[in-house]
């Protein structure tokens, strides 16, 4: 058996752009020439295409946790949907567990446990146990084995006390545990987890991250998409950063951070921030990638910037900020995070 669990080569997915939705044509996209439809007096509008995934190459090793990190709309979920056979690639190839996602789709489905983003992937009018028994049958698990496996997962996910209650009465975290149990039912070698901690409270998200780490220890290969950089950093053996449908960097978390190791990140907290101030700070020699965002509803702003030499830049930063109603509340020089790597690579923040 090959050491590669998931392999994608020049994977592309294009959708017809829907008018009025803000779907943008990707650069270089061509539209077919206007055609006449069946109705001779009506010109058929040329179909514009929106490229959601634009030539993704991936090689994920067996037993690895691979994080696909990117902002909303970057192409993470579309990539996952192609790998789990819900979508056919427009071009390129992908193999999961050695099976082609188009020609051997059912073998791919048998090799995968998938948790898609959102909590409505299970039946709210069934109990947690009924949901798992149902999906066990869909995944071709013999009845006697399924019963034991469902009990085992209910126990493991700490759902035992409420396993016979309708899912509509569960919390978001409990529903997510049922969805993950569903993905684990057939004990598939590969797990695809699309934004698994989205919408969970901090404790539930922490528990889930622990579970993902355990699943890796048990030998599962995990492809995880997230737009939480800490999550990707903490869990992933390797990370692919994806933006506008392309993987723009791929390395270990440490390797990615080393790319901007020679830089420092200056983090300020200020009140009375205004955009002109940002322009002034950007004009200081050695300051790059300045990003600001308001914290909560109060007039408190977090301002991050990357600097080649913070010692040289700091006096000028302080000089610009003091006065005109702006006040420096806090200042730190921190080690670069994955978010800083993302800003360095794309010039924008993950949350944009």
């Amino acid at each position, binding site marked *: 058996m090959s050491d590669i669990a998931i392999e994608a080569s020049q994977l592309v997915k294009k959708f017809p752009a829907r008018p009025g939705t803000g779907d943008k044509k990707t650069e270089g996209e061509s539209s077919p020439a206007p055609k006449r439809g069946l109705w001779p007096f009506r010109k058929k509008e040329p179909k514009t295409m929106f490229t959601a995934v634009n030539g993704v190459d991936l090689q994920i090793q067996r037993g690895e946790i691979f994080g696909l990190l990117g902002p909303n709309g970057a192409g993470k979920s579309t990539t996952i949907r192609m790998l789990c056979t819900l979508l056919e690639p427009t071009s390129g190839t992908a193999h999961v567990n050695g099976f082609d996602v188009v020609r051997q789709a059912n073998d791919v489905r048998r090799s995968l446990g998938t948790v*898609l983003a959102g909590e409505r992937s299970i039946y709210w*009018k069934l109990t947690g146990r009924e949901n798992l028994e149902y*999906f066990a049958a869909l995944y071709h698990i013999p009845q006697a084995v399924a019963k034991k496996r469902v009990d085992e997962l209910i126990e493991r996910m700490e759902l035992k006390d409420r396993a016979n209650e309708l899912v509509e009465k569960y919390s978001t975290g409990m529903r997510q545990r049922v969805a993950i149990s569903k993905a684990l039912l057939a004990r598939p070698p590969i797990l695809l987890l699309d934004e698994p901690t989205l919408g969970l409270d901090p404790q539930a998200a922490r528990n889930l991250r622990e579970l993902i780490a355990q699943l890796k220890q048990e030998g599962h290969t995990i492809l995880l998409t997230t737009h939480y950089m800490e999550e990707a950093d903490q869990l992933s053996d390797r990370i692919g950063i994806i933006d506008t449908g392309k993987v723009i960097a791929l390395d270990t978390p440490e390797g990615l951070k080393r790319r901007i190791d020679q830089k420092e990140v200056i983090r300020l907290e200020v009140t009375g921030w205004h955009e002109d101030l940002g322009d002034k700070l950007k004009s200081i020699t050695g300051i790059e990638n300045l990003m600001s965002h308001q914290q909560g509803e109060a007039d408190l702003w977090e301002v991050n910037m990357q600097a080649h030499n913070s010692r040289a830049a700091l006096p000028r930063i302080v000089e610009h900020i003091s006065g005109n109603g702006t006040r420096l509340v806090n200042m730190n020089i921190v080690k670069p995070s994955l978010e800083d790597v993302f800003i360095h690579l794309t010039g924008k923040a993950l949350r944009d």
Partner: protein
Amino acid sequence: MRSEMNVKSLAVPGFFADVHALWAVVRREWTIFVRYPSWIIALFIWPVIFPMGYILTARALSGVDGSGLTTFQNTTGLNEYVGYIAVGTMIWMWQNIVLWNVGGSLRNEQMRGTLESNWLSPAWRFSYMLGSSIPQLVSMLMLMVVAALEYVFFFGVKFDGNLWLSLLVILAAIPSVYGLGFAFASVVITMKEANAFVFLVRGIVMIFCGITYPLAILPDWMQTVSQWLPQTYIIHAMRAATLSTEGFSGIASDLKMLVLFGIFWLAIGYLLFSLMERRARQTGAIGQY
């Protein structure tokens, strides 16, 4: 990096695994169905309410002394005008419910958000359609039994026909009625809208298939159209099986037509489902609301 020695799949694929999956869909659908108690209202009240308007209209038109019924008897060969209307409206209700429930089954799953999670499994995909139809068929048979009892007790209808022949007609009608439902489900999931299609189809059935009147009163061109609709044969055969004493000979030609229509509509249903499934993978339509 660890190898995945511990990860051994529990799945045992094969024909019986697919049958088991189909049965799981049936159980799931039935469990969810009985957890929405509004079906009890539909079961007891709808079969009485729906034909009532037609029955009262017929009573008014036949005159206080019922003298107008002679014309009806001459045209249909039946005395039982209430039973005549009740059978016609029951078949109409059956097709209507199948269009809503079976035709809307995939769309409902899509709106619930569960269609994709079903689609992720290696189970035979047509089993989601088949599986959701079986509980619907069982509930429809219950509705027919309750309706028949209500017609006997509330309207005094005399079903002089043969129960086994009635069941035979239902059996022969199933492929056409559900084949149309399967075709419908695939169209609805592509168009994202069921209402306009349901209204159109049930309107056609109502006008062309003679649910409350004999086809003989229709203009020739409408009678020609009605010959191409399986519901025409279902209604005719069901009236013959339940209300007349003709026996098998009264339904034989209708049964033949229903078998042919059944093969046609099941094939169309499966074909459209396969096309929809393929198109959904290309466009991502399964995950869109």
